[in-house]
């Protein structure tokens, strides 16, 4: 069973907060891994928000392959951060030889390109890197995007925290939005790519539960977009649907909910927007989910949101203070990092709503 969590704050936070959030829920997950994605980066990345950062775990050969590809494509490295690791014996971690967090400047001929052109380039390069490193497992390329950093590893989350010295807060490695999860996808093979959160072109998603419409989703998504690949976890489908609805179709976020959990036909008929909702349900029926899931997502503008499936509901709680909002599968996680909040304002989302947190931490509850 997964536990998922996310923190969004007005201030830069260190990942130790995310570890604490998840650690208190450790009885609910199997401690087989740790994965997090940070958006809106602070610390050493703060001055490079507009430039893409590569997050990758690789062998020496993998690093060399990746750097060659990036070099050939014309990317120029402007910054590199190598986490200082704690190699003490006895840690339960299946570590890769290198963890690469490198920020690049765009190729010269792309500097004045349209935003969309740059974004497509970043995706294509990430796919190219992934394909090049995949055959001999030379490395895992998690994200290549401005203002986004991804870390995933197999092992006990506590030990992974120790290994990367994430338990020791500092102001070098921080972000305003952190999403995290403490489990590998143990239903199937242990694959680093299978651990959520997942990232695609500024969108991040993580989920718990089991996607019973996985096959329907996958078969449809495979043909929708070149970036919809992998499918090592059934939760990747949520990211791809989010990306497709919000970015490719350019529909407001609320329609993501209409796509994944369409209203029953009898309810649609009663509504003023019946025509639109029916068209959505018809054309995107293969992206429907049938639960049980809770999804947490981050949009390119760093809006954090959550919604559930409409039938079987996985728990999610939202707690908040003046400067921080925390999403957590279990309330004990929020108690850990926001002990002094007014718990009476906690939100327990229901099956027909999306709760969004914008840049000012304003909470919007949009009812389907």
């Amino acid at each position: 069973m997964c536990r998922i969590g996310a923190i969004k704050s007005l201030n830069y936070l260190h990942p130790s907060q995310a570890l604490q959030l998840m650690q208190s829920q450790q009885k609910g997950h199997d401690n087989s891994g740790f994965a997090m994605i940070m958006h809106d980066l602070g610390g050493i990345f703060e001055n490079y928000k507009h430039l893409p950062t590569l997050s990758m775990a690789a062998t020496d050969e993998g690093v060399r392959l990746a750097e060659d590809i990036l070099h050939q494509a014309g990317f120029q490295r402007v910054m590199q951060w190598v986490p200082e690791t704690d190699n003490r014996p006895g840690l339960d971690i299946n570590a890769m030889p290198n963890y690469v967090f490198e920020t690049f400047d765009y190729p010269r001929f792309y500097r004045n390109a349209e935003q969309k052109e740059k974004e497509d380039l970043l995706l294509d390069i990430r796919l190219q890197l992934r394909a090049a490193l995949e055959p001999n497992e030379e490395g895992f390329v998690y994200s290549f995007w401005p203002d986004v950093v991804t870390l995933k590893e197999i092992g006990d989350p506590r030990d992974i925290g120790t290994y990367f010295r994430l338990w020791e807060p500092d102001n070098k490695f921080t972000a305003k939005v952190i999403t995290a999860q403490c489990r590998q996808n143990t239903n199937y093979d242990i694959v680093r790519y299978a651990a959520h959160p997942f990232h695609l072109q500024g969108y991040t998603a993580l989920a718990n539960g089991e996607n019973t419409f996985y096959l329907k989703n996958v078969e449809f998504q495979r043909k929708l977009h070149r970036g919809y690949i992998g499918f090592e976890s059934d939760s990747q489908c949520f990211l791809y649907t989010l990306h497709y609805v919000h970015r490719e179709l350019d529909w407001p976020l609320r329609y993501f909910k209409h796509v994944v959990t369409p209203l029953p036909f009898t309810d649609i008929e009663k509504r003023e927007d019946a025509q639109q909702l029916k068209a959505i349900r018809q054309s995107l029926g293969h992206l429907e989910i049938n639960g049980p899931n809770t999804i947490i997502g981050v949009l390119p503008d760093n809006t954090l949101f959550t919604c559930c499936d409409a039938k079987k509901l996985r728990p999610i709680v939202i707690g908040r203070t003046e400067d921080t909002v925390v999403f957590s599968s279990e309330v004990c996680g929020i108690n850990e990092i926001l002990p002094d909040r007014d718990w009476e304002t906690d939100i327990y989302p229901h099956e027909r709503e999306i709760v969004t947190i914008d840049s000012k931490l304003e909470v919007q509850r949009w009812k389907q």
Partner: protein
Amino acid sequence: METMKVQDVTPNDLPWKIIYDAHRCTLCGSCVSACSFRAIEAKVERRRLIFSESELPEPQSRFSAVPVIRQVKSIKNYCRGCGICEKICPNDAIRPERNPDSRHPIITRCLGGDSIKRGGRKNLESTVRTLDKIRVGRISQMTDPSLDAQRHTFDMLAPFGRILPPEKLPLGVGPDGLLQTSGTTPPVNWIYPVIIGDMSIGALSWRMWEAVAMAVAYLNEECGLPVRMCSGEGGVPVRLLKSKYLKYMILQIASGHFGWNRIAKAMPHMVEDPAGILIKIGQGAKPGDGGLLMAQKVAEHIQAIRGVPKTDLLSPPNHQGLYSIEESVQKMFLSFNAAFKFRVPVAIKVAASATSVSVFNNLVRDPYNIVGGFFLDGIDGGTGAAHEVSLDHTGHPIVSKLRDCYLAATAQGRQGQIPLWAAGGLGKTGDLAADAFKMICLGANGVFSGKLILQMAGCVGNDQGRCNACNTGLCPVGITTQEPPLVRRLDPEKVAQNIVNYFLAMDTEFKKLMAPIGNSSLPVGRADALVATDQAVADKLQVQYVC
């Protein structure tokens, strides 16, 4: 001894023998009058009786003429095994018995010089049905709890109509941040995933057809199940065309265009649009063969509805003027979409064939987005009349073909754009819910069924050659006949009630299948919910093999 020629037809040449017990028979005559095939008759037998009239046994013999019931020895009036005699006999004195030594296929051809015709279905059963080698094997439990079939609500509807790919939807974001429609989309009706298959008002008796229409109206108006019925080729009574119940009917047009004169004339008076139009290109039970309504079934009201004299009515095997798939698309586009001002979805029905996927691919790539459904009919379907050789030896099983079409759509990312509806032997064992559910998991949006509806009405025919006399116009239970005395055997209200009850039972069973896989909407294409106990079936259908 009477001279006898070995070529004479005798009961042991025929497919059924009448077993008659003279001792139990009271000679009431019910069986003879009830036999619509005139396969039994009253006769007189010369019998020798041994008796004794004295105190001590002094046997004497006497000959007397005794009235009895005898089987007619004829290839015209032969027993079809329908068992009406047995049903009606108050003393259990008579019944048909299958004759394993029948020479019927040979002598009928030899004596008649014509091919054998019959109704019913394919009668060459040899192996376990494919669908019975598949189980719903992915049971939700633990991390994905199953649903409660009684407590949860289920959204069990299927599309009829062309569905646009999402990027082609005419939707844009308005000033209020909501999606607004800025164009038109093809009409789509969401209906119950089981359509009552196309059986014409000529093939069926007026009581039977009316009973089905009644059941459909009741299911919609009283039970909340949006079941649709396809008219079959042969028109619709004008009264129905002008009524509000037309919205529950899918009007069929086939190569004979029977009944369309009336339909066209009724258009200005229609108060509702029909649920859809189904263009029949082929039929699974007799692919490559057109419709055939024997003259004996062309009663007065059929002549009126179709505007024809009393004669054999043959729909040509092909639509005249239809030489290519592109043309069929044009034909649909021009005539039917336009006829109903693009408010009514138009679909196409073809016989499953080795070439179905190519046909489907052509339609799914049609740039006009007007093909509103691909109805695929397999070999096990029934028919009112066909040549036996077609019934028994032509056709294509439906299960793998439906799957092939779905996977072809999936390979192009076009699944769901042309809804797939499948038929052909579904519900053969009586469990239509199970068959339909498995077909849906394999990629069908819904199924259609005809012969099972007849069985709900009381059809006594089966796949082992019993009855199968729909072509004769002598249906012993009044379903596929236009003979008033036979039609009156059928109680339309009772038939409607049976159909309604079956659908209600089936609806519950659907939920009982959806609940364990944890889905509240139809699992179209969820082949992962199925397992196959046969390796070859598993491989072909791309489902998990289990043993």
